[in-house]
């Protein structure tokens, strides 16, 4: 293993450095220059600086060619660069959605935490070493815990934050325990080193324990059942913008690194979950987690009265679908997984963007509060319909194409495999269930009659533009999937698995 000097490391970490420096600039400006300005102006300035920093980082990512060094602690491949650029775009959207928010006076600190979380995600995506993975994950998680509790006036926000922190700490402990077992087993902390040791003894019991620990730890991050308990409370309690950040960017990064750890680190210990001959490995574990997530997420979502909790359970369900991409673990399924998680994040961000507006007007996030929204805010309702129908998988929106792509890649991984076929059957069947609860929301929005005194909803123009942009991208990526898909397939092929 070649050792990387600090100079090299710094050079490679330019995008992250830009993001972190921007974070400090934002706090400094907010505390020094904008002390006496109104909250709106402070948010505007902080978001402008933060977004500019993210754009700079994206530019830096695009400007130079990747180094393609596979053996070091951090890798730099076309794939990681594309995912990092995607994460930065999602962060920019979250920042733009928080313009005009009123839940806090600590504007600079809010943006700082979002940017630090983003830096954590960027490192996480590039990390190939257990220690680097753990530290980046903690940087991300700690930012998210605080962001969840950022609404000091709301007891629910504090409760959610504490719950998130306790569950998160526990899962981090599981992860760390698993990692330490892995280190003891393989005498290496890099994924490639571990893979070599796994290759020699794929059925070692210590390895199995470590594998389960890793699934528990990452399963918590991606909110897969049965490690999803934090999700409904956090989605409901956190300020909308924090919830949007948790539901989008952090999901993308976690899904990506989870895939890397499983497929690269545990290569050779996949095991098999064919219906007739089961051998132990991580594939059977993930099959169970995936089925549990699809069933629990979709069935529990039916009973929800609050749109945010509904989104939380639907996130569990979507995690279940996405785990199918792990079960297949081919290059194609990785491309499909990334397409899925990106389009899913865009739609989820959009829903939270709409929620930010309606909650300000209604005071809560109940589904019944959305009654007659289409008459009060036709544009927002139309966008909400696009987001929810995309999540339900209705063509020609991107959610449908993402599902199609994922399911075909899963079946193509092992043609003729009955297990994969049954998993896909379950997933498609559960999507039919999901249409029911998404339509229940839209029924409120479009079908229910308006109360007589209901006035048109006042929504900030800027927010509407951002939401409209999200809706357009969800529709566009569904109608012309080649735009993103070709790039994804290209970088996955170029970077290899």
């Amino acid at each position, binding site marked *: 293993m070649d050792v990387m000097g600090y100079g090299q490391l710094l050079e490679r970490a330019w995008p992250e450095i830009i993001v972190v420096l921007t974070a400090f600039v934002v706090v400094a400006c907010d505390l020094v220059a904008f002390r006496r300005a109104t909250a709106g102006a402070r948010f505007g300035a902080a978001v402008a600086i933060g977004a500019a920093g993210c754009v700079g980082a994206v530019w830096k990512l695009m400007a130079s060619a990747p180094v393609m060094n596979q053996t070091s602690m951090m890798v730099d491949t076309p794939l990681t660069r594309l995912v990092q650029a995607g994460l930065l775009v999602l962060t920019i959207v979250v920042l733009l959605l928080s313009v005009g928010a009123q839940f806090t006076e600590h504007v600079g600190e809010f943006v700082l935490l979002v940017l630090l979380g983003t830096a954590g995600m960027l490192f996480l995506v590039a990390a190939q070493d257990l220690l680097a993975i753990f530290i980046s994950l903690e940087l991300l998680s700690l930012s998210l815990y605080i962001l969840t509790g950022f609404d000091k006036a709301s007891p629910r926000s504090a409760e959610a934050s504490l719950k998130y922190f306790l569950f998160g700490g526990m899962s981090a402990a599981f992860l760390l325990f698993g990692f330490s077992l892995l280190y003891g087993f393989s005498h290496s902390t890099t994924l490639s080193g571990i893979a070599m040791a796994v290759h020699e003894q794929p059925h070692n019991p210590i390895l199995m324990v470590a594998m389960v620990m890793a699934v528990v730890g990452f399963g918590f991050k991606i909110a897969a059942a049965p490690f999803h308990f934090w999700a409904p409370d956090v989605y409901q309690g956190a300020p909308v913008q924090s919830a949007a950040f948790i539901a989008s960017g952090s999901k993308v990064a976690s899904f990506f690194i989870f895939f890397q750890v499983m497929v690269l680190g545990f290569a050779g210990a996949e095991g098999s979950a064919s219906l007739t001959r089961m051998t132990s490995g991580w594939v059977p574990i993930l099959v169970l987690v995936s089925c549990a997530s699809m069933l629990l997420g979709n069935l529990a979502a039916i009973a929800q009265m609050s749109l945010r909790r509904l989104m939380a359970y639907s996130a569990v369900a979507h995690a279940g679908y996405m785990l199918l991409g792990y079960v297949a673990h081919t290059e194609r399924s990785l491309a499909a997984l990334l397409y899925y998680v990106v389009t899913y994040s865009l739609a989820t961000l959009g829903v939270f963007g709409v929620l930010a507006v309606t909650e300000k007007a209604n005071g809560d996030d109940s589904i019944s509060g959305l009654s007659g929204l289409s008459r009060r805010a036709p544009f927002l309702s139309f966008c909400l319909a696009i987001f929810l129908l995309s999540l339900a998988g209705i063509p020609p929106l991107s959610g*449908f194409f993402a599902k199609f792509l994922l399911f075909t890649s899963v079946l193509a991984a092992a043609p003729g495999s009955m297990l994969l076929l049954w998993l896909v059957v379950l997933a*498609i069947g559960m999507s039919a269930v999901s249409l029911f609860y998404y339509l229940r929301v839209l029924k409120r929005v*479009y079908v229910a009659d308006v109360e007589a005194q209901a006035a048109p909803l006042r929504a900030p123009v800027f927010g509407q533009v951002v939401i409209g942009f999200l809706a357009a991208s969800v529709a566009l990526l569904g109608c012309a999937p080649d735009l993103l898909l070709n790039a994804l397939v290209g970088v996955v092929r170029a970077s290899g698995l």
Partner: protein
Amino acid sequence: MMLAWTIYISFAGALALLLLPQRFAAWSRVIALLLAVITFSIALVAFVEHRSGAMFTVVHRSWISSLGIGFDLRADGISLTLLLLTGAIGVCGILFSWNVEHRVREFFALYLLLIGAVYGVFLSYDLFLQFVFYEIVVIPKYFLIAIWGSTRREYAAMKLVLYSFIGSAMVLIGLIAAYVASGSRSLALGDLAGFAFTPHFQMWAFPLVFAGFAILAGMWPLHTWAPTGHVAAPTATSMLLAGVVMKLGAYGCLRVAMTLFPLGMGPWGFHFLGLGSWRDVFAVLAVIGILYGALVALVQRDFKFVIGYSSISHMGFILLGLMTLNQIGISGAVVQMVSHGILAGLMFAVVGRMVYARTHTRDLTALGRLHLSKALPFAAFTFVIAGMASMGLPGFSGFIAELMIVLGVWRAYPTLVIFVAIGLIAGVAYIWRAMQMAFFAGRDTEPAALEHPLEPITMPERIGAVLLIGASLVVGIFPQLFLNVIRPALESPLFSGLRQGGW
């Protein structure tokens, strides 16, 4: 080339109506009518131009290159026939919803979206594209029923959507499996139909995909969405639902399930309850549908439910015609699609628009007291004509369609002809009963007092009714017009697997 514009114009029109300013809302029905007439004319011109019935390409562009999915629109005699039906029902549906006042822009926007998607399904050659259009149909249906519907509309709309979505989920599983099994290169119908799927694969894929489409075609016992949905829907939507949307299911059965997996209809090699293949199973289900629909229609109190269940019965004929696997039976099924599309549209127009919108009741006994044959003579006249056509009186479309299907059944399943005959007789009975109770009952009693006198039948309604009656007569008197394009389509290489697989 022009045919693709039927889709584009409908979708663009839907968008334009949504963006129409509130003060021009009244114009939306005129715009919608205009666009529907234009798309109908395009379909008509294409029908006249392509007398050979052979398949021709409308648009073929690469779409999702990495998956081999193309934006591929083609038409042959069968799809041209159904496009023509879609256009005609689309125009008449707007004429019969001239009285919609509540959220009128959204109503016609969703209506055009629905029509555009239906055109899309009939035109698509790439199965991915077809599935996209097939699913787009689901959403406007829901809102049209849930917002503008009547009796238990939200329940009926959700039931209909879930049934449709479960059906399309079954289709999607079959499509993905077929796509992967054929090497993930192309989803064009011709390429997949040319691939030799293993008999084992076809044995499970065929019933899955066929049943998935047949849910939308109202196959017993998965038909229960249809009567409730039709009854709850506003007039134009029930016309479209029964007229063309149910045909999407039948079209998918023929065009996708039977074409891709012809061996799935072969014998199992054993008999279970006297059934030896999936073909037998679906044929028997179709016959049960014919009888069940007719007998249940015979005892309904609600006028619209009579028509709703009669649709189940008539759709049973279509599925049975498909399962005969001989040319006359399948051609008959396609003609029956057109015939039932026209007649169901006409009957729902009479019941929903001419009668219910004026009397606000659909209860047959209550209607009898109103002496409708005197109060609304045009409605009575139209229903009598539609009823005669639906019973299968020679000269109307129903006669020739059902005759061809019965001939086909006679060759394929001689024993089933008896049950079909019972179904035909019951068909006469329920139409007769409904006609008598709704329009000609209570001669000896005084007419019931009404708060408001019934408004006379308006001009758009008359035009729509005359158009549909005329269409039924054209199909009935000149069936060769359609058979001449359907036959070459069935003889095309696309159906060669089906022809070798037992017909």
